[in-house]
């Protein structure tokens, strides 16, 4: 276990984390693994049995290698907390994550940029999930109210036989700024993966989400689920790609975008099947809030504004 000295930055980050609904006590709990970094400074780190972390500061960010040892099931979620507290700055995070055979872990990433006026956050993750291993990765962003941030999360994930990978990306509070998300997952035999993204864009936010699953193994399964709401002059482009390349592979791409005001949305579902025994389906819906849903809620006494709020919050939940 290592703890670092820059407590003022840590306190500031954790205060924002707390304000965003996080539990600050997790850093004090020795049974919870965590890694906290502001800018290119590592502020706090803790590991638990079977969970190895090798993290170092780089010129512009953090490079970390994480390994969950064979057969180890990490009981408590592992918390990753990254952020930039200044108005300007760049943070590059490089993560190499390996879950060895039969292991499991749930990572919760908190990405906090409360004052961003000109901030870049670049994440590049390479994830390797061993045979029968399971990884859950929940990533929640808070970008403040200024919209001056560019976030570029990129992940390349490979899942071995019988492995499972679930990811959930949420950016629904505050501004988005510019988001360029790019995830690629390759699923081996009997592997299962679910990729979920929820984003709420305002003002001139620019959202670009690309998620790709390659169903390479026999009987592999996948769902790509994207929920986006945009208003004002925001724009969003969502590309969901699934390739069915093996016998018994089943994939589904499900994209829903709600558009208000002058916002512009685009959905590009791409399905590519190279094995006649594979099946990939897709559905995409873009438009204003559903009229029947609106009328039903209004018949329950909600105003039109309240009804829209309930519907949008629901799809982003």
């Amino acid at each position, binding site marked *: 276990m290592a703890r670092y000295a820059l407590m003022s930055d840590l306190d500031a980050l954790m205060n924002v984390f707390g304000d965003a609904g996080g539990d600050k006590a997790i850093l004090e709990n020795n049974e919870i693994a965590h890694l906290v970094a502001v800018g290119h400074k590592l502020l706090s780190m803790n590991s638990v049995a079977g969970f190895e972390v090798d993290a170092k500061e780089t010129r512009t960010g953090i490079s970390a290698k994480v390994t969950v040892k064979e057969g180890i099931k990490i009981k408590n979620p592992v918390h990753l907390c990254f952020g930039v507290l200044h108005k300007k700055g760049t943070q590059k995070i490089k993560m190499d994550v390996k879950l060895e055979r039969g292991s499991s872990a749930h990572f919760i990433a908190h990405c906090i940029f409360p004052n961003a006026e000109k901030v870049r956050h670049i994440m590049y993750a390479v994830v390797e999930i061993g045979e029968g291993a399971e990884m859950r990765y929940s990533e929640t962003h808070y970008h403040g109210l200024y919209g001056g941030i560019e976030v570029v999360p990129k992940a390349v994930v490979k899942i071995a036989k019988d492995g499972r990978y679930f990811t959930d990306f949420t950016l629904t509070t505050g501004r988005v700024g510019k988001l360029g998300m790019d995830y690629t997952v390759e699923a081996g035999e009997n592997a299962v993966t679910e990729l979920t993204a929820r984003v709420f864009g305002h003002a001139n936010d620019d959202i670009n989400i690309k998620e790709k699953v390659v169903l390479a193994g026999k009987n592999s399964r996948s769902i790509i689920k994207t929920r986006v709401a945009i208003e004002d002059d925001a724009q969003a482009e969502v590309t969901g790609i699934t390739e069915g390349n093996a016998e018994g592979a089943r994939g589904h791409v499900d994209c829903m975008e709600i558009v208000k005001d002058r916002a512009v949305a685009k959905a590009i579902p791409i399905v590519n099947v190279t094995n006649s025994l594979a099946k990939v389906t897709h559905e995409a819906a873009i438009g204003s809030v559903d009229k029947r849903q609106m*009328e*039903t809620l209004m018949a329950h006494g909600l105003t039109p504004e309240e009804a829209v709020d309930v519907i949008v919050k*629901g799809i982003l*939940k």
Partner: protein
Amino acid sequence: MTSEATLLELKDISYEVKGKSILSGLSLSIASGEIHALLGTNGTGKSTLAYLVMGCEGYRPSSGGIVFDGKVINDLKIHERAKLGITMAWQEPVRFEGISVRDYLTLNNKDMDPAHYIGMVGLHPELYLHRMADKSLSGGERKRIELASILALHPRLAILDEPDSGIDMLSTQDIVNVINAFKEHGSSVLLITHREEIVIIADKASQICNGKVICSGSPSKVAEYYKSRKCLVCDGEVCAYV
């Protein structure tokens, strides 16, 4: 038992779409606390009438007046009518992603107990309150939850558009239980149905045909009249009533 005070009065309502008459000179009144069954074959304008009373978008009378509790409400929007105590259960309730059954029932009143109302429609609260009101529910489950949500509102007028239709429809006893619950709350109900056995639990019934009320009175009399009809789908031509 009905009281004398009229709650809803439809006065000579006509409704046209692109020059085609859907409702023509329709008049109907429902007393406070009255359960009023509305019978009619497919295409007669029953659901149109429901949408007009609720004030759905695009549904305003071409002529005539909708009077609720003495006030003409033709120009009020849905939520404004809901504030007056009118609500409606659609024939095919919509699904809501990300909204739990508990949240759906407590949209307007976070302090009330949704379990009570879920139980009233024959569902086990512990099995349903945490579920999402989305496409994971069957048609019958969704209808029951919609009825529970309407009961929870304690409306002055509930419009129930064919609560008995669908593949896994509610049983007659289920409907009777729901209607009795509305009665206990003192709500009036406009009950749209095809089923004669449901009609007889009402206080009063009317038959609508080709956009007009052609028969109104005791439920058994109207049900008998309805059974003797010659048409299955209203085309405004076969029926001798028009």
